[in-house]
């Protein structure tokens, strides 16, 4: 069984984000790391391939400046190879273009039995790329999967809903997006980290994939105003002296909620 995992390499979420003054798109020129949300998909893929008794996990990613640091983390966890799409013409690409690019990268790998993505990235969080990719590839999809297994060539997943969850069965090949916490991602071993350095990552451009980059101008939308939101003011801050619970009680009483 072959599985492709889509991963995003993002600026460290612990650092404050910033917009590029010229294009009003997210600045992504610093060091990038593997989006935490993607570690779950990588782990899920490795477990499914293990359970199937054969096959491999491939990683695809789109990032500026030939960045592979985040992909290497996925390779260190156990993925076999990867494709990085890196092309200045793709800067400012919207979710639809990203989906087309990743779909073409998946096709370059010859497709897979299963494509896995996170539900949304931690930096842009548009949250539509996996489902858009499935549509581009003409695949069925199960989004927001929180439990996944393959049983007799059929994917069986529990899909998060507003009220609870649905059990869903899906023919393969298919695409799924997995929620955080779906599995416990392994830490790359030292051996894995060393091995990842020599695993093949093919770097391609949009035109290698036959995708015409729409870029920012082609997105059908443009940012016309960036403003600071009205900031919430901090209120009273007190050090707990053992009696501070009384402050909370008084606060709630004052609001007449107790």
């Amino acid at each position, binding site marked *: 069984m072959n599985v492709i995992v889509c991963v995003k390499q993002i600026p460290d979420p612990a650092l404050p984000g910033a917009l590029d003054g010229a294009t009003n798109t997210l600045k992504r020129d610093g060091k990038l790391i593997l989006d935490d949300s993607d570690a779950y998909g990588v782990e899920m893929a490795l477990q499914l391939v293990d359970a199937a008794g054969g096959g491999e996990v491939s990683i695809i990613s789109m990032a500026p400046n030939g960045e592979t640091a985040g992909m290497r983390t996925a390779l260190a966890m156990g993925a076999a190879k990867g494709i990085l799409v890196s092309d200045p013409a793709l800067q400012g690409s919207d979710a639809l273009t990203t989906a087309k690019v990743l779909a073409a990268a998946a096709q370059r790998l010859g497709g897979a039995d299963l494509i896995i993505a996170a539900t949304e990235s931690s930096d842009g969080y548009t949250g539509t790329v996996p489902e858009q990719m499935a549509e581009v590839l003409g695949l069925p999809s199960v989004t927001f999967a929180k439990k996944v297994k393959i049983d007799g060539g059929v994917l069986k997943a529990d899909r*998060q809903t507003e009220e609870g969850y649905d059990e869903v069965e899906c023919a393969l090949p298919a695409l799924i997006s997995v929620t955080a916490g779906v599995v416990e991602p392994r830490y790359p071993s030292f051996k894995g980290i060393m091995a990842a350095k020599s695993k093949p990552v093919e770097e391609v451009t949009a035109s290698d994939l036959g995708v015409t980059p729409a870029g920012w101008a082609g997105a059908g939308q443009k940012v016309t105003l960036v403003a600071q939101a009205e900031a919430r003011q901090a209120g009273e801050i007190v050090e707990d002296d053992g009696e501070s619970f009384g402050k909370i*009680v008084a606060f709630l009483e004052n609001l007449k909620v107790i």
Partner: protein
Amino acid sequence: MAINSVWVFAQVTNGTATTGTLELLTKARSLSSNVTAVLGGDASGIAAQLGEFGATKVYATGDLAGKLPGVAVSGAMKAIIDGGDKPDLILFPQNYEGRDVLARLSVKLNKSVLTNSIDVAVDGDAVNATTPIFGGNTLVTTTFTGEGPYLVAFRPKSFAAEASGGAPAAIAAAAVPDLGATGGAKVTAVHVEESTGPKLDEANIVVSGGRGLGEADKYAMVEELAKLLKGAPGASRAIVDAGWVPYSYQVGQTGKVVKPSVYIAAGISGATQHMVGMKGAKNIIAINKDKEAPIFGIADLGIVGDVHKVLPKLIEALKGR
């Protein structure tokens, strides 16, 4: 461009239209007098309600027979548009089904999407959507260019749902076309997670716990406090990822957006990802050991202290009332 026709992706739960649907219809009718709801399911029970909030018409697919709404409803929408009824703007709720339908339709129409928005306005010829970024510190206005339909998803509670007293929406059948391979997923069982007390995103009081609780079984304090206050328990992503509580408890960018009267954050430092989901609360109480924690920057009452000491005393005090 002027907005002549607006569609709303409508959802139904327990036989009534969801609050999110009514919020979007309320907004839609302020933009156009020609508002159409599109529903994956049977509309006969909710046509009156949809009309009351502004829809003049509802396209309904009828029972989806286990098909997932993402492929089925987007397919039906595309068929209607190809048939000549083309809206200028389609509003989606930012939730599981809303995002799936939006995503599939965007590919079918080759149109960009805008998600996580909180407002949309027509200004002369421009259609502008407002989207908060960086945890809501910054508001970005995006103007759509070119021809519609413009596709936008809105966070829950972006608009207040208000009835306008309109006549029942006229029901029109929307056929789901042959989905081919994309229709390969089927729902085989539906599970409703029973929860006592109010729903997280509707509760007047929300008590959330985070990593500061230290270990999974300490979350019981959060549940007990929520119960005492007749509120709902919530959680930060950190403890959902750690498996302490189910994903449905998660408040934040990747979880639920809550706007209660009172939000109590216990042992939550206030990562951007979390604050996005709760900074709309009217009153925020934060308890955290680290006085530098970002959560104190937005708290109306901040207690710098150990949740393991403060919460039990608070619970005792409330029990004694």
